[in-house]
């Protein structure tokens, strides 16, 4: 098992190098002079030349890339933001806890609502509960998050004045953004739980459990659920990875100072080091979450665990 984890971590290296290379190249060839971006239109030519020399912007492409990687690995330095002048790493680490909290809340909501709804829908297939749940899941899936976010703000913040529409410091303020972000995940988790459960409750080993004289609650709650959750765990992990990296819209609407908003601002102001660092950071988080999901997967499915040995 340990060997497998190590191998997976080593396999991450080329992936991350690849991501870094792509982002670096893309931004390198984007029109616009970073020196001008930083110093402003009024800067003298001398100042610009000096900045380019200092930042190594005149070096050949590969040298620049090599320097970038070297600094990242050796010093955890992935550049300095052009606009705030603070280290990119520091900016990201300040923003990340917000994103993490937001994603975690959204994921918890999705699991708490999605899994029970999926189970009930499956064991009461075609009942009114199932029909209504599936309609809501459809709506949740197809409703764009910015639209849902605005509706939530209009209703709960502007009209009812129950919850604040922005800021992310109190528990109350976290409710609306978490719900908006969770909507798609709830729908996906519900649908996945339902279909997986539907498949499992027709399985022969469920019949075996019933033939033993086992109670229906245990047949469903233990025998069926444990098997049905295997694909749901994967989905939740992938969803969580996606939430962590893609809460950009939600963060913008609800003014949550997370990584997503940091990235949007960086892109708008052509803050290259910030964009580069942000993308790299997202790639790393995504890979780590994926690795964790695979390990969890092996933990709940003995067939996979056996393959890893």
């Amino acid at each position: 098992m340990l060997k497998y984890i190590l191998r997976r971590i080593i396999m991450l290296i080329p992936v991350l190098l690849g991501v870094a290379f792509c982002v670096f190249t893309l931004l390198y060839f984007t029109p616009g002079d970073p020196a001008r971006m930083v110093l402003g239109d009024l800067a003298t030519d001398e100042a610009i030349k000096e900045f380019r020399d200092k930042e190594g912007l005149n070096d050949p492409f590969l040298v620049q890339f090599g320097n970038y990687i070297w600094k990242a690995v050796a010093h955890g330095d992935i550049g300095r933001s052009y606009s705030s002048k603070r280290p990119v790493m520091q900016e990201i680490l300040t923003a990340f806890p917000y994103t993490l909290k937001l994603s975690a809340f959204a994921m918890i909501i999705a699991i708490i609502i999605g899994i029970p709804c999926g189970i009930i829908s499956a064991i009461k297939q075609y009942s009114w509960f199932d029909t209504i749940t599936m309609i809501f899941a459809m709506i949740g899936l197809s409703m764009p998050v910015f639209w849902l976010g605005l509706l939530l703000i209009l209703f709960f913040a502007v009209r009812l004045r129950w919850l604040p529409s922005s800021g992310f410091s109190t528990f109350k303020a976290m409710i609306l953004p978490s719900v908006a972000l969770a909507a798609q995940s709830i729908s996906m988790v519900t649908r996945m739980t339902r279909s997986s459960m539907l498949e499992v409750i027709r399985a022969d080993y469920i019949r075996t459990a019933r033939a033993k004289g086992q109670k229906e609650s245990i047949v469903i709650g233990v025998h069926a659920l444990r098997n049905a959750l295997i694909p749901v765990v994967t989905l939740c992990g992938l969803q969580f990875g996606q939430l962590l990296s893609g809460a950009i819209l939600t963060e913008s609407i609800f003014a949550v100072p997370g990584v997503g908003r940091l990235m949007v601002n960086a892109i708008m102001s052509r803050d290259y080091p910030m964009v580069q660092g942000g993308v790299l950071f997202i790639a790393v988080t995504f890979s780590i979450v994926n690795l964790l999901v695979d390990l969890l997967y092996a933990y709940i499915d003995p067939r996979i665990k056996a393959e890893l040995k």
Partner: protein
Amino acid sequence: MDNMLDIRNLTIHYEVESGTVHAVEGLNLTLGRGESLGFVGETGAGKTTTALGIMRLIPNPPGKIKSGEIIFDGENLLDKSEAEMRKIRGEKIAMIFQDPMTSLNPVMTVDKQIAEMISLHKKVTKSEALKLAGDMLELVGIRRERMHDYPHQFSGGMKQRVVIAIALACDPELLIADEPTTALDVTIQAQVLELMKELKQKFSASMILITHDLGIVAEICDKVAIMYAGRVVEYADKRSLYSHPIHPYTRGLFRSVPDIDEDVDELPVIPGLMPDPVNLPSGCAFHPRCSMATEECAKVRPEMQEAEPGHFAACPFCVKKFMNGEAL
């Protein structure tokens, strides 16, 4: 000998898109204590459905027991509540299912799956149940050290042994084995059958053995019931059935069993196909395929008649001929 199981007029339907599947249609069957019955029929005849009906495990929807009685130990199982049935399943009636590959829970170790059965019906602690589970495994010929393994770590034959261990763990009065060996390859088949024969003796259980294979029946069973399109068409003890089958369908089955002594190029098969269970033929369901069919056969559904003591067949013409000593 009193009858431990007496099925009367059992009718089980499945509602599907194309209509009603008459899986079991007015089936009658009896089984004495300690006897083993071979339950033979083509695929789709309704054998598994009958077995699941006895266990009250027909998937609903789409299936439903429409009418009839299943008298087990003097009580009608169809009147039992779900809670009462749970006491009977596993403890009084145990079932071995058709496919060992999918009959075990893939995420549970086998000792736990056997122990679950024991804990449900015996007053034992968890660790005692696990110990008994290990004993059961040894009984079916699997080393105790393997008890913490998962099903995927076993071969098909071993899985079927585990399934047998589960079924016998609580010493049931009646064991229903649904084609316990069809999914296994031939050498393993023989071993598993041998094991079942041995254990049946040891546990002195009655048994219903569902199969397509008349050879297996000859080896293990005392009685034979031949099923066709949801009904039993012939029922007798093994000796009389094998020496002089009466129903045309049964005789067709025997003709299609290869005989090593005879050198034939082609097996005579019963012409035609199993009837569509959604639209069963009127009268005798076998009449479209029967070489002896008369107009009468398409109109009246033949009842079981006793041709000689203990030998019943659902074909009045053949029974009459047999009793008159005419050749069939």
